[in-house]
């Protein structure tokens, strides 16, 4: 394990860089990662002893590969662009919130609001996700190997949510155009969310998502859910209000 400061280490290009959060601060870690934005000198990073700290590896804008060994706190990998981040542990609230591109993989469970508002990229949660998974998602693809909690995909606008386990109450409430696929039981559907026919194009899409996430499941075992488009925003008659 390197005992050099991050700043010193970054100047030595090539190879894998280790940042031990028992010795360095979150701010130092994030600064070192942001320093890669303009010129990529070190592509592979590993982070040790995260101990549930918040805001790890946020706001990245470079093709980095980052492995975080241990549980992370809130907003890990938030606003991520380009980077591929793996959390070898559990994640707190808001993992990959507002992600733009790249990928985030959580080996354990994730707390609430995983992938919230995210515009793009791939989020894979190998355990369970808490409540409000994919809330207000705007283009991200989320694949959860376990269950998702209540109010998942609330006001989801674009992208896909794949749940290999069960979904909690009020799935897909006030949904716009997100495609939701659930293999297990759905405790209840939210307002305006309905089960929809699984056509070949959906089987193809789901198959591609599962493959991209490295999850071995049969697409035919899933059901599809989406917006019934009956809420106020979908009624053309309401356009006269403007």
């Amino acid at each position: 394990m390197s005992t050099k400061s991050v700043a010193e280490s970054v100047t030595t290009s090539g190879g894998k860089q280790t940042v031990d959060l028992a010795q360095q601060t979150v701010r130092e870690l994030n600064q070192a990662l942001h320093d890669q934005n303009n010129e990529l000198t070190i592509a592979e990073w590993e982070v040790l002893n995260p101990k549930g700290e918040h805001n790890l590896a946020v706001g990245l804008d470079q093709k980095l590969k980052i492995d975080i060994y241990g549980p992370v706190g809130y907003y890990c990998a938030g606003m991520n662009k380009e980077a591929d981040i793996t959390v070898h542990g559990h994640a707190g609230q808001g993992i990959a919130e507002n992600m733009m591109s790249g990928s985030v993989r959580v080996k354990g469970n994730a707390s609430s609001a995983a992938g919230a508002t995210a515009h793009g990229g791939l989020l894979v949660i190998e355990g369970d996700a808490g409540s409000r998974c994919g809330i207000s998602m705007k283009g991200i693809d989320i694949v959860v190997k376990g269950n998702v909690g209540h109010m998942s995909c609330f006001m989801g606008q674009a992208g896909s949510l794949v749940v290999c386990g069960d979904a909690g109450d009020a799935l897909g409430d006030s949904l716009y155009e997100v495609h939701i696929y659930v293999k297990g039981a759905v405790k209840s559907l939210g307002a305006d969310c309905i089960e929809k026919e699984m056509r070949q194009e959906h089987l193809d899409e789901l198959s591609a998502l599962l493959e991209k996430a490295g999850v071995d499941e049969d697409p035919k075992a899933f059901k599809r859910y989406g917006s019934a488009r009956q809420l106020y925003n979908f009624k053309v008659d309401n356009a006269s209000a403007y």
Partner: protein
Amino acid sequence: MCGIVGLYLKNDKYQDRLGELFAPMLIAMTERGPDSAGFAVYGDEVDQGVKLTLRNEDENYDWAALAKDIEAKLNTKVDWFQNSKVAVFKVDIDAETVENYLMENHQDVLIMSSGKSIEILKEVGLPERIVNLFHLENMKGSHIIGHTRMATESAVTMAGSHPFSTGMDLCLVHNGSLSNHNRLRQELKREGIDFETENDSEVAAGYLTYRLQQGDSLNEALEHALDDLDGFFTFTIGTKDGFAVVRDPIACKPAVIAETDDYVAMASEYQALTTLPGIENAKVWEPEPSKVYVWERTTH
């Protein structure tokens, strides 16, 4: 905001280290609650009579004289020790007699808790200060729950700090805010529950005391709480032999539980659990909304 933490030992392995294991958990929640902190520790149980946690703001208060007075007037025996502004009195008669005597004759003494096992210690200031003030690290026992407060619904005072106790050996810590506490307080007052503050969390504690008085089990009382309490909450509750966690149906106040063969620990954030022994291999999960989690000791 507020932080809550709890540690419940499933066996005797860590009983002597309860305070030492819990202190860093409380301090880890400083950012969530820097206004005041407190904890309720369960241990050193009395077989007969009652154990009271008493408090007087004067650190030189003559607790020995109070003990002698109680012994003489109530014809009983008192075993006691002082810890900062607080003294723990073990009195060999029933709780009601002692409490009534204190309320009538020693109004300068606050009764912080009453029961067989519970001791409640709390103070305004940073959690680390409270930990050191009361020598938390030396404490032993079976379970302990604590709170770090960022005040919203009432003033930053010792009395407004958590945990709240309104009944024998019962206490509660709360992260969130209740919206129907005023009405509920009035209803509970009519049922004979006493309140010391205007705090919403105290109403939740009073509600549980009321339900338990009605014959509910801890589990049933908490199921009823889900129906009758309106607002945001993650609660951790302690009783003489039990420990419970419950979240409101929306569950936007955070909570994480870790369980091993030796203990159950809960915290607002995982950061507070990282110093526990064997945490790397613990089962870690987020308690589900509207689900009552109870652990109770059947043998002691």
